[in-house]
Structures are given as C-alpha cells and as structure tokens.
C-alpha cells in the first residue's frame, strides 16, 4: 500500500500590502519630522563651554554672516525684528526663541536683536556649539 503523502501547506506570504505599509511609514516620518527653519541662513555658530543640549526651536531668529536678519527663515529688516518675533511667538510666551548669530559679527549687528528680543519679552536661547 502506497503511503499517502501529507499535503504541504503553501508558504506564500501575502506581500501586496507591504507597499502600502512602506508609504505610510514615509508619510509618517515626513509629518513627524521638524524641518530646520534656519537651513537657508549662512551663519557660523559660536562655541562656549557653558552650553547644553536644548529643546528644538519653535521660533528662530538668525543673523547671517553679512548681517541680514531672519525670523523663521524669512528675511526681515532691523526694525521689523521685534514685531516679527512677537507675531511668530503668538500666545506661546513660555516657548524660548532660538537665536543664532554668526560668530564673527560685531556689536552693531547683534545688539539691536538682543534689544528687540528683550523688548518683545521672550525667553531666549543662545545657540552655539559645545567647546
């Protein structure tokens, strides 16, 4: 008598939904990431021993190496800095504003920004590398 072979179970996994899963992952990562707002600003960071890691920036102010002012990556004039910061901060006064200034700039360039931020009454994080 011939031995009956057991029928083998098929081992094909359904893979048609893999693409959907992958696209969902892509969309998730794009939405969950926080894009740098100062990516278009050419400024060299200063360095100090007294810095630590800080939270990501919600609002960022930058002064590039030619002395141009940027709020949220958009260029503004010196006089507009304060109003632009107040507008960008909105009601989230407790959220600190990140300030990135090119390391080689002189007082005439950074002092107006500091005064504007002081007048706007916001918390300021000075951005720089750890020495």
């Amino acid at each position, binding site marked *: 008598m011939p031995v009956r072979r057991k029928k083998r179970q098929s081992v094909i996994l359904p*893979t*048609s939904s*893999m*693409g959907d*899963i*992958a*696209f969902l*992952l*892509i969309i998730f*990562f794009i939405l969950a*990431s926080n894009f*740098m707002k100062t990516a278009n600003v050419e400024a060299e960071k*200063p*360095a*100090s*021993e*007294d*810095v*630590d*890691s*800080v*939270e*990501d*920036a919600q609002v960022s102010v930058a002064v590039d190496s030619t002395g141009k002012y940027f709020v949220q990556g958009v260029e503004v004039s010196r006089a507009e800095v304060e109003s632009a910061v107040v507008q960008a901060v909105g009601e989230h006064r407790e959220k*600190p504003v*990140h300030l990135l*200034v*090119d*390391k*080689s*700039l*002189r*007082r*005439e*360039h*950074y*002092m107006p920004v*500091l*005064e504007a*931020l*002081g*007048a706007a*009454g916001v*918390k*300021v*994080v*000075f*951005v*720089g*590398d*750890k020495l």
Partner: protein
Amino acid sequence: MPRPKKERPSAEIETGSFSDISFLLIIFFVLTTTLSKPTGRLVDIPSASPPEQQKKSEDNTPSIKVFGDKVLFGVGQKEGDEVTLPELKGRLIKYAFPSKSEKERMVVVEVADDVQWDRYFKVVTLVAETGGVVALVEEE
C-alpha cells in the same frame, strides 16, 4: 483559414516591486538625515528698564566689561580688574545667584564696539551658567 490573433500586450502594471522601492526610499532618507540636537543656553534678558533704576542698582551689582583683548570685572561704579574667563566664572559663582531674587541676580555686561559675537557669547553663556541675569548696556 482563421488568422492567428495577435497577442495583446498585458494592460496590468507590475506592482510587486513597489514595496521594495519604497522601503529603499525610507532607508535612504533615514540614513541621509542628520538628526540635529541643538545646543545652546537659555539666557535671561530683562526688558529694558528705565535708566534711573539701572543707576540705583549699580552700586553693588557686578559689572563686566568685554573688550576685544580683555575682560574687566568690577562691582558697581568701581573700575574693574582684568580677569580670564575661568576666573570670572569663579567670582560669579561666589555670588550664589540661584538662591537670590531676580533683581539681585543682575549682572551688567558692557561690550565694546569691536567685540565679535563669539566672544560675547562665551561671556554671556558663562553668566547664565552661574545663574546671573544679563543686563544689556550700550557703551556710549
């Protein structure tokens, strides 16, 4: 005699490799992304106070004058003496700012016109590290 029918090209698009493509895209983006962990220091900058108030508090507030080549540390109106940055930190720590009220934590930082941001940044973050509140002063 019946003519043999031409074989129609299939209208289905092969989608089996789409998942491979998108997983490759994910891996590519994950690897090329630089995760930036911003570093910096929270610095207290009080909004500009009227000049009389500043004058009054000047008698015993520590004041720092930053020049391109030296840093002077003094108390009140007295002319300061030259210090290095580590010395400055030691002196400011003695004030024990964290246990004081905001008014008593005031440190006047004056800066000369030719001082670059990098230098000013070092002094201001040092003051903030010791718990001081930086009062901005424009040099006349």
